[in-house]
């Protein structure tokens, strides 16, 4: 599972509220779609939990379902307390899990 974390805007100071965009490359299968060749149902496969941590403290926990679009985007706000590491842990309903990190480096 490939992931992408974007902090918007790119430059920010401590105390600023920034947006964190998290995107994961995932099919987000609903379990209702049929294979076009065989006609068999494609089993549900979707990200069901995403955790955002800053310096190992939980900021936001998400419980999500298959209704999110393919390659889902999740965006939250975050008030930058200072420098540190942002970690996002995403897990799907089949137990596949991915951990991605990005440094938080406020300027000024």
């Amino acid at each position, binding site marked *: 599972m490939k992931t992408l974390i974007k902090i918007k805007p790119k430059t920010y100071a401590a105390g600023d*509220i920034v*947006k964190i*965009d998290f995107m994961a490359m995932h099919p*987000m299968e*609903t*379990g*209702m*779609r049929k294979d076009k060749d065989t006609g068999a*149902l494609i*089993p*549900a496969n979707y990200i*069901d939990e995403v955790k955002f941590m*800053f310096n190992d*403290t*939980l*900021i*936001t*926990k*998400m*419980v*999500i*379902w*298959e*209704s*999110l*679009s*393919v390659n*889902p*985007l*999740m*965006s*939250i*706000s*975050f*008030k930058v*307390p200072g420098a540190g590491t942002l970690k996002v842990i995403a897990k799907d*309903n089949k137990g596949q899990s991915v951990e991605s990190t990005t440094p938080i480096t406020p300027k000024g």
Partner: protein
Amino acid sequence: MERRSFLKSFGAVAACAVALPHVASAAEEKKSGGPNEMNFETAVAAITGGKALTPSAKVKMEAPEIAENGAVVPVKVTVDSPMSGKDYVKAIHVLASKNGNVRCANIYLTPANGEAFFGTRIKLGGTQDVVAIAEMSDGTFLIAKQNVKVTIGGCG
């Protein structure tokens, strides 16, 4: 009239909340298997535990009025809150009222967010209301919704 029928339907939701908690947990167990199914009333009851939902301008939802492609519908929810230790938004729930499984996302926030915001892109099977429920730290629930007309459904 619209507001009245809206409140009435949520009154009904409150009534079944007590009777149906096992339905919610049964649906939860199904999660790992085939398609999940949950209707709007059951999902709301599972979120609020039967408490009242108050329509509020504090909950702002941005979604298109007409979505050409139901597979990718951008939704943004912002809740007006100081996000302080005493007064903050505990959770934002996004529901698609007529999808097979109406639940899209439950976002559990903390004061560290600084602002109660959640943005995503969802699939809609057809024209329906997209609903945002904000769970406040004082235990109240605020709700906002927007109807999205879908030209091509996103669940196929």
